[in-house]
């Protein structure tokens, strides 16, 4: 949404800066490096998409930011999480509680299970408001009704006294959003907020998040596995694989000139709807060979090398994070070459139609 003229709240002020974050889990199977040296930053009013398949460490990253990692077995072993000038990893639990749900809010994946079934939704929203804001009960209730109205719940005066089971999935997710936004957070962490919802409801929720973000000027860390959702909602994107960020940049650059073999493979294995008529049902989908390795089986050096077609012996050493152009980085020894193989599509219309083009190129490179 960086290019949208409507949004005036973006600035260069960095809200969250994660630097070299390492979250390890100490289990009977050994030390699992679920998040291993992740760095990114989110500027005010912008949305960063954290994409990856299951097991890539994206949820652990977000939970680490809020220090919600169960400890033990998990532990943030290294790195800094700078939020508003203070390092969240150094805060005490009491200080952290003041940050959680106040300056940083979170929406979880499952609206069905993240609300308490034995309390009314109003009860749960009001609890959060009373905890973080200087209001009495009546004011908080008024405010909760306002918030419900804001997230598009019809007849909020009545719905506030309903229990979660009386609401549909989309409604529950709206309640979660109302709750998360009631404290006017500077940063919203949305962990797969639409994954459990239907497409038409997903469209509603994404729209809602976008408009609320525009109003409040908050930053969003958006975690998802759906590249389509990223393209629609995010300004920047970080692609995670096996606990590391393999590619990072603004959404246009990463989607149009991907430089990491994993990113390219991910795009190509996606069946896309091409509404321009040029599509072939008989085409096989591109397949990344193998599976995402389990944390105990992460290969040395580049963790993608066991599945990568460009891999050489050099890849057994940790690849450098190459800055290809300002703000666009890829952790690959051959990022430049890999990217040269993909066709840059700068023209919007070409990009819209030619989403297949990079695929073919990449496939050729593969051969």
């Amino acid at each position, binding site marked *: 949404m960086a290019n949208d003229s409507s949004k005036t709240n973006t600035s260069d002020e960095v809200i969250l800066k994660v630097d070299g974050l390492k979250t390890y889990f100490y289990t009977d199977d050994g030390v699992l490096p679920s998040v291993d040296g992740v760095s990114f930053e989110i500027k005010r009013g912008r949305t960063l998409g954290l994409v990856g398949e299951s097991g890539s460490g994206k949820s652990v990253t977000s939970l680490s930011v809020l220090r919600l990692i169960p400890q033990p077995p998990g532990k943030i072993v290294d790195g800094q999480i700078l939020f508003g000038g203070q390092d969240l990893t150094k805060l005490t639990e009491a200080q952290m509680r003041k940050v959680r749900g106040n300056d940083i809010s979170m929406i979880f994946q499952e609206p069905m299970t993240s609300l308490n079934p034995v309390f009314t939704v109003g009860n749960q929203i009001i609890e959060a408001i009373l905890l973080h804001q200087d209001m009495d009960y009546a004011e908080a209730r008024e405010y909760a009704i306002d918030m419900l109205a804001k997230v598009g719940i019809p007849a909020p005066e009545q719905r506030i006294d309903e229990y979660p089971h009386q609401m549909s999935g989309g409604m529950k997710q709206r309640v979660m959003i109302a709750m998360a936004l009631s404290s006017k957070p500077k940063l919203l962490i949305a962990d797969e907020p639409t994954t459990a919802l239907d497409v038409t409801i997903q469209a509603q929720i994404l729209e809602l998040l976008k408009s609320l973000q525009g109003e409040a000027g908050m930053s969003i860390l958006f975690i998802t596995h759906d590249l389509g959702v990223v393209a629609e909602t995010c300004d920047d994107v970080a692609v995670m694989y096996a606990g590391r960020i393999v590619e990072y940049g603004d959404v246009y650059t990463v989607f149009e000139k991907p430089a990491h073999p994993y990113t390219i493979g991910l795009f190509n294995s996606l*069946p896309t709807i091409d509404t321009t008529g040029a599509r072939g049902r008989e085409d096989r989908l591109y397949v990344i060979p193998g599976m995402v390795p389990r944390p105990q089986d992460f290969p040395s050096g580049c963790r993608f090398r066991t599945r990568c077609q460009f891999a050489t012996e050099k890849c057994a050493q940790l690849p450098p994070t190459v800055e290809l152009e300002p703000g666009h980085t890829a952790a690959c020894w051959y990022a430049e070459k890999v990217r040269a193989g993909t066709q840059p599509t700068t023209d919007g219309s070409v990009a819209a139609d030619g989403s297949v083009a990079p695929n073919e190129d990449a496939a050729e490179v593969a051969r």
Partner: protein
Amino acid sequence: MSVAPTLLEVRNLKKHFPIKKGLFNRQVGSVKAVDGISFEVNANETVGLVGESGCGKTTAGRSLLRLLEPTDGEVLYKGQDILKMGPAEMRSLRRNLQIIFQDPFSSLNPRMTIESIIGEAITFHKVAQGPEVREMVEGLLERVGLQPSYITRYPHEFSGGQRQRVGIARALALNPDFIVCDEAVSALDVSVQAQVINLLMDLQQEFNLSYLFIAHDLSVVQHISDRIAVMYLGQIAEFAECDELYDNPLHPYTQALLSAIPQPNPRRRAQRIILKGDVPSPMNPPSGCRFHTRCPACFAPCKTVEPRTVEPTPGHKVRCHLYDPEFAPNDPDIWARLPRQPEAPVTVTGDEGDAPAKRDASSDAAPDGTDGVASTEAAETAEPAATSTVEEAGAERSDVSSDNASAESAEADSAAKSNA
């Protein structure tokens, strides 16, 4: 229109679940999960069944296999009504009709080895016995891309993608000719999903299979299907060839559904049609057209009269009053509210009524977007939206002219497919 023979025909299939309440378990109502759906699946064809959760697509898949006993209707398999068959007949027929389930984590018995899961059906139907079963199971595992040595393992030792492969091998064990894939790839990660989709398509070629591919992910359905049925609240809203459906969706629900899919392309944002509200409950579906509560182009008869299924162009069925000659409105305002104008002139409405409506819509495209019940954020992206409508209008014209040609080529395609 297709050369391939019809393998399975579903006529007016209904499945109602009773709601019972009170001391005597009196029936107080029913959930009309599937309420009169009709379609047919040809040999070696994939029919996609899409819809949102709760629209009855899974119930449809299960009741046409009689895993749930349907309330009413006919299911003709090679001309025979399987709903009238006795238990013994049905059992032997099940060899030909198989299903792959959605959840690879709960659809395999955790206490059975892979050999007994896949081999059970083989032994039951006396296809093979003794050591032959093991050979067959090993062959099947190899075919679906698993190592034959996995035969002694238990389901928990596999990843999601591997389990789904086991589910596929199990469905293939009896060499069926029709498989219901009930959200077969929905639970899988993108890269694994691609592997399984490719496998399903290869197997279709190899074993001459027909699929009913149930999914909520329209991009996957488009990739794999020949024809697609869009379900809404227990009924089929639209049924057409895959390309036709995506190029020229007629039903307002299909149009909204297609536009709601997030595209992995950052430059194609904000052309979405946002539907208001939720899917109504199937316990108490709206009167008339079931979609009228959310429809941007709803007009007078929609609220009271249940729409019929009409066929504006051959092979493209739609259940909507807009295309029904009896109700089709001549009022251009109603047509203008339709988020996407149909490409080919709708034959039934006549040229006079339709042509001005179309012109109206293409010239007023931008205000249409803001006025309609379902609005895109036209203000935010006024420029790209405008350019895209121009492009679309251009494409529209060329498509109308080449309509016949494309229909012919589609026929040629399907002919070629059946030859192969």
